[in-house]
């Protein structure tokens, strides 16, 4: 199998959501001593982009979208040790600290966003659900991340998004990270009201928003 064929198969595996095949092809690429950066950029990335396109066109629904993200994650997990060994730094589009705010255990929306950001080249630190507000800030400082993404499904817990921004202000860190908010009760108006840097309605729009804010 030549390089082009492999890239095409990788794309197909991602588009069709076949996880073990996406992993196997990553192993094959390693075995063939291919340039792994090229494998990612010409195989995996176009694959997940196509998944996103199909989703936007209305052909793919959330199960296909999230499966695509999981395939990417699985393949990257195979490639990462090799990249580390060769000391190749993959281009990160940005570093994201993400989680569902304290008091709220809903994490579907957050998982979708985390998965899509990660599949699209962002470095994602997922703190999970019911995350103490201070923890978002501490982790963002510690990892020097670009974004803090706050998810909330409940109208009662969405106040945590506002409080996190207030905490950032208190700590003189406001403006240091781009704060994105999401979740059923949130909207652009809310984001503006509390001084967040952005709001996205769904996971794909979150990727676009984050990319735009990174100037990509």
């Amino acid at each position: 199998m030549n390089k082009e064929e492999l890239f095409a198969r990788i794309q197909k595996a991602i588009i069709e959501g076949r996880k073990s095949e996406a992993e196997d092809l990553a192993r094959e690429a390693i075995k063939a001593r291919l340039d792994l950066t090229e494998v990612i950029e010409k195989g995996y990335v176009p694959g997940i982009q196509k998944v996103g396109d199909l989703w936007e066109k209305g052909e793919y629904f959330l199960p296909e979208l999230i499966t695509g993200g999981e395939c990417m994650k699985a393949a990257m997990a195979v490639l990462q040790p090799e990249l580390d060994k060769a000391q190749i730094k993959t281009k990160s589009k940005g570093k994201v600290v993400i989680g569902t705010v304290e008091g709220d255990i809903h994490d579907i929306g957050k998982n979708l966003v985390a998965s899509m950001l990660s599949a699209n080249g962002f470095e994602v630190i997922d703190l999970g659900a019911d995350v103490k507000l201070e923890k978002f800030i501490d982790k963002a400082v510690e990892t020097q991340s670009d974004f803090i993404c706050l998810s909330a499904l409940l109208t009662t817990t969405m106040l945590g998004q506002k409080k996190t921004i207030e905490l950032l202000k208190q700590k003189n860190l406001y403006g240091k990270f781009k704060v994105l908010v999401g979740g059923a009760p949130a909207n652009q108006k809310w984001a503006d009201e509390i001084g967040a840097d952005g709001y996205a309605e769904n996971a794909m729009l979150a990727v676009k928003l984050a990319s735009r804010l990174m100037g990509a």
Partner: protein
Amino acid sequence: MIKTVRPKLELLSRRFIEKIIDEAFEILDKQGIFVENKEALKLFSQAGMKVDKKTSRVHLKRRLVEKCLATAPSVIKLYDRTGEQEFVVGGDEVHFDPGSAAVRILDHKTGEERKPETKDLVDFIRLTECLDNIHFQSTGLISADVPHAIADIYRLYIGLIYSRKPVVTGTFRVQSFRPMKDLLAAVRGGEKELASKPLAIFDACPSPPLKWSNLTAQSLIDSARAGIPSELISMGLTGATSLVTISGTLVQHVAENLCGVAITQLAKKGAPVIFGGSPASFDMKRGTPPMGAIETMMIDVGYAQIGKYLNLPTHAYMALSDAKTNDAQAGMETGVGAVLGALAGINVISGPGMLDFESCQSLEKLVIDDEICAMAYRLISGIAHRDDPIATDKFEGYTPETQFLSMPHTKKWYRLEHFYPVIADRDTYDAWASMGKKPIAQRAHEHIEKLLASNPPAVVDQHARGELTRILTAYAKANGVTSLPGLP
């Protein structure tokens, strides 16, 4: 007279129900369920169940849960504020109450959703009080002009001041239970009196999949001990927080609710508990939980049938819509839900007035929905054998000139046989046009103004009001809230 058939909707065969229950029991036993509440875990542990304290996972044996089912009452009686009017929650009785805890209100004047304030909550409660087909109140709006720390108790406080109807409510914080119970007891004249004549239902929602949080498990325990009925609100989202198949979601729903029943009965044998829920068919395109989806309603009707099989009172979130305004979709989804819920004999149906995925209340929709509920009630009252013979005697001496309109038979029965709506348009085109071609929301709005102007608020007596205000003020103060909005 020939007995009237009570029209009935059932979606599951007996065999299918038993299969779903069997699998729910198997999951509770083998996989267990998470209960993040120390007291509940202790109750389970004392009952001999295997509890993993580290993970808060409890493995429930079928025999224990069945014992709990046997002590849970199959019928609950609620009483209004005066203690005189009784509402039976059980059998195939149907009671509608407005969809609860909306964070936004649809402002008729602007056509936009906005945050509700105390005045909106008072209007909402007063309006519900006027609507005959909405039997219960709900603490339907969360006032944005009071701090969140007292938001749950505040809406109950307003509800108890301005309404006589029993109320469906719930806690947002563990510590709110006590003052909320105190408010209810103050109206009832004591804790014992409250337990013997419940005035409120407290909702408690497990977190899908298979988890009872600290807050909700505590609410079950506290309510059980106070004799306040708990409503178990399982809410799997198909393919997102539960299995994608309707039957798969039902298994999880039943497992979560059975655990809830067990908590109530272990806390207090015989505690009133309602087999309810707010599940939804997850929209795989948009990631939203559509309450107006037909599959959502199918899950509701399905678990309600299982609840009845288990001999428990039932509840569902139906008769509501995901539309953002009072359009055709709002009427369509609400109408279908109200009718299906009523046909299924679901005892408490929460939803009227609600739009936008349980997030927005509309006063205009509430009065439109009251008419929808009237239609549903009329439907389930069935076709009656009013008199005998049915017709032959009325046709004696029949001529082409016979007048039905002036027949005593007509006068005797027309108001009982037929419902005459106020909001729905039944005018001729010309009459409708001459009145300004008003859309339904406008007609509803004008009707609300009339209703509120002609019905003085059903304010609680001075003594009880003083007591309610004392309890609220003390709790507010303890939470650092010193000023509260003025009330009419």
